[in-house]
């Protein structure tokens, strides 16, 4: 609690500080907002990033968890924060999904993606399709063919409607022209529990989450959503190899600043994050999480971000509203 209070104080003090100190940026603590609870993917990525940035900048970088409404609360708070480089956001793929879902329900969006200036991509993990080891499907082809024969009969769990794990499956369904039965859960943890308990037939989730259960022989991996195969699972083909190039999906984590942050500050931040991801302590921390670093910055990140946002927006629109019967 003290930490959070201290961080809040710092933000307060920071916001009344001089605004003209651009050339000496940074000259006071930087806050990195994580819009999810401590312990989640975003939090576990943000902490080593912030620590490494702190070492590079020789200036405090504090992580503040501002959770709520599947990330919308924290993301909105950064979208409207003062664009001075002292408030940053560590966001996941869902940053592109939330405004689209808001649009779908005709509600005023909590924020829009163009309120953010992308700084750098830290990691991008493709989701992996897994089924319980006692199910008959040995390959992704078996699975997709069976799903085609029995539309709406094969079920899968997800982290929640329009959540990342839902969108991954939805992109596959659209690419392969199949219909699966969606059983939303309240988060990625419960979604994993559901497949381990045999209550659903399939799940798409991050490699770090499913790997221990694949090793223990409880789950069987069928395919990955990435551009390339996952290093830890060299025998598992990508959906691209199997002829579904549109089924590309990553649970990615990236650093953003509010739109309007001065260009020199953005440049400094990009350079800082680039040095931070090469920091040896940072690399060790990410290795332990079994999350490979995928660094992209500048135009490269912007292109990745735009392409991803476009795919997801289309995905959300095609899922449409779930009409209640």
């Amino acid at each position, binding site marked *: *609690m003290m*930490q*959070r*209070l201290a961080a*809040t104080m710092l933000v307060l003090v920071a916001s009344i500080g001089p605004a003209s100190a651009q050339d000496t940026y940074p000259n006071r603590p930087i806050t990195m907002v994580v819009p999810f*609870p*401590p*312990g*989640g993917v975003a*939090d*576990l990525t943000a*902490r080593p990033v912030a620590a490494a940035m702190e070492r590079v900048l020789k200036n405090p970088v504090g*992580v*503040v*968890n*501002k959770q*709520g*409404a*599947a990330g*919308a*609360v924290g993301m909105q708070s950064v979208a409207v924060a003062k664009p001075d480089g002292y408030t940053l956001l560590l966001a996941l793929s869902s940053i592109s999904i939330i405004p689209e879902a808001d649009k779908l*329900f005709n*509600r*005023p969006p*909590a924020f829009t993606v163009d309120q953010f200036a992308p700084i750098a991509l830290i990691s991008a993990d493709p989701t992996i399709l897994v089924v319980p080891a006692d199910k008959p499907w040995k390959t992704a082809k078996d699975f997709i063919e069976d799903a085609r024969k029995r539309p*709406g009969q094969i*079920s899968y769990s997800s982290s*929640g*409607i*329009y959540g990342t794990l839902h969108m991954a499956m939805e992109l596959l369904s659209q690419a392969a022209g199949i219909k699966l*039965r*969606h*059983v*939303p*859960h*309240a*988060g990625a*943890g*419960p979604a*994993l*529990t*559901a497949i*381990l*308990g*045999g*209550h659903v037939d399939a799940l798409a989730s991050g490699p*770090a989450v499913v*790997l*221990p*259960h694949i*090793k*223990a022989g*409880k789950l069987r991996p069928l395919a990955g959503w990435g551009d390339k195969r996952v290093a830890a699972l060299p025998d598992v083909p990508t959906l691209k190899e199997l002829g579904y190039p549109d089924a590309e999906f990553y649970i990615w984590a990236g650093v953003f600043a509010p739109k309007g942050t001065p260009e020199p500050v953005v440049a400094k931040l990009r350079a800082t994050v680039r040095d931070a991801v090469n920091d040896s302590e940072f690399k060790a*921390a990410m*290795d*332990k*999480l079994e999350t490979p670093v995928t660094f992209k910055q500048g135009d490269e990140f912007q292109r990745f971000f735009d392409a991803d946002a476009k795919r997801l927006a289309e995905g959300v629109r095609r899922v449409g*509203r*779930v009409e*209640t019967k």
Partner: protein
Amino acid sequence: MLEVVQNLGLGFSVALSPPLLLYAFVGCVIGTLVGVLPGVGPLAGISLLLPATFGMDATRAIVMLAGIYYGAMYGGSTTSILMRIPGEAASVMTCIDGYAMARKGRGGAALAIAAVGSYIAGTASVVALMVMAPPLARVALRFGPPEQLALLLLGLLVLAYMSSGSMLKALAMAALGLLLGTVGIDQMTGYMRYAYGVVELGDGLGVVPVAVGLFGVAEILATAGAPTPPAVIKPRLRDLLPSRGEWRESAWPIARGSVLGFLIGILPGSAHIIASFVSYAVEKRVSRRPQEFGHGAVAGVAGPESANNSATSGAFVPMLALGVPSGPIPAVMLAALMVHGVAPGPLLIQNQPALFWGFIASMYVGNVMLLILNLPLVGVFVNILRVPYPYLYPAILVFSILGVYAVNASVVDVWIMLVMGVLGYVLRKLDFETAPIVLGVVLAPLIELSLRQSLAMSDGRYAIFLEHRIAAALLAFGLGLVLLNLYTFARRGLDWRARMALAEKGDSS
């Protein structure tokens, strides 16, 4: 069995090493503090300290975080008993009888029984965790959405036993709680419900601000509005210890609470909160003098406090045996393991014996530490009652606001607490009990989600509840309970509850 003894030997050799003892102790102290502070519960405590554990090794981190978790369960009873303010959400039921005991001058006894009950439940449930974790975890996995719904419906029946006044009023409050529980993003369709454009309401009304508001703030308002301030209690030394009669009356509730709490703790959801509610209801049901509940029944403190403690060990079962979280707190602890490169999963016990057995042994040690820490504190804490109300209550209000704000750094939560405080005050004036509202807020999202998940699994066929054998059995049991009660109701007409309500009416008019 020999293997267990050998492993435990390994565990104790890890747990009794000085650094680990220190981390367990630090965890227990922080946990007690977190439990005592109104609003700040174990989840907030663990989340806030998680980053601090990143530099330690995995065993130390997990031992310290677990210490915070069960330490909070010990500490949560303190403010509930002395001031009717739940230190954390699982202590709501303790507020009722614990506070009534404190008003009668038995506050020290209530605190001591809560501590000893917590110790017994904590230790017994670690034994269960140690011996039965893998098989129990497999049972827990079989609890899918249909089974969970059946169990939660059974939990709702519990409501009927919670109030001491009018059943109609209790049910009205439960309905209000269930309605409040529907606020937020609909998990199945993504619709925002009753949020009125406030993004922060997307996650619904948190149980912490609701509980602290309904109990704590309402109590402060009620005291301020009383014509004469409540007398300052000066506890005497011999009142600190429970009498022989009080020990006798708490023995069985502690035993039942331990078993119930552990079993409920294994299942997903906010288990430690639900465990304390169920234990209270069970104690009231089996008690020979149910009319004492709400007016300082020892069993009403002993049962729920034991239950919420053993539920914490239960929650570790799926986490350690399978690597899946059974609730938000184990989820944070799993993350702590992942940060240290320990892959949580079915192979954890095999691959990391020093961590698993060290953790188990440290829980034995931790429970002893907490007992030693808490019993002398009883003498310190009861002296809070000596502070005159004009000084004590504003201070508590400040701590409540700070505590509730700190959990999510959300001003909206503070407003929820204040609104609930006013609501709780009005309801108390009208003789409504507020505990069923809290239970409703906890259960509503769980019940709704598991019902709709079940129907999503079966493509809308309700037969799924009969096809799943565990679910069917639980539902049949619940139906039996209802029928049994209808039968006695029809035979006897008025039960003790109605008679007492009538009698109270006669008193007050």
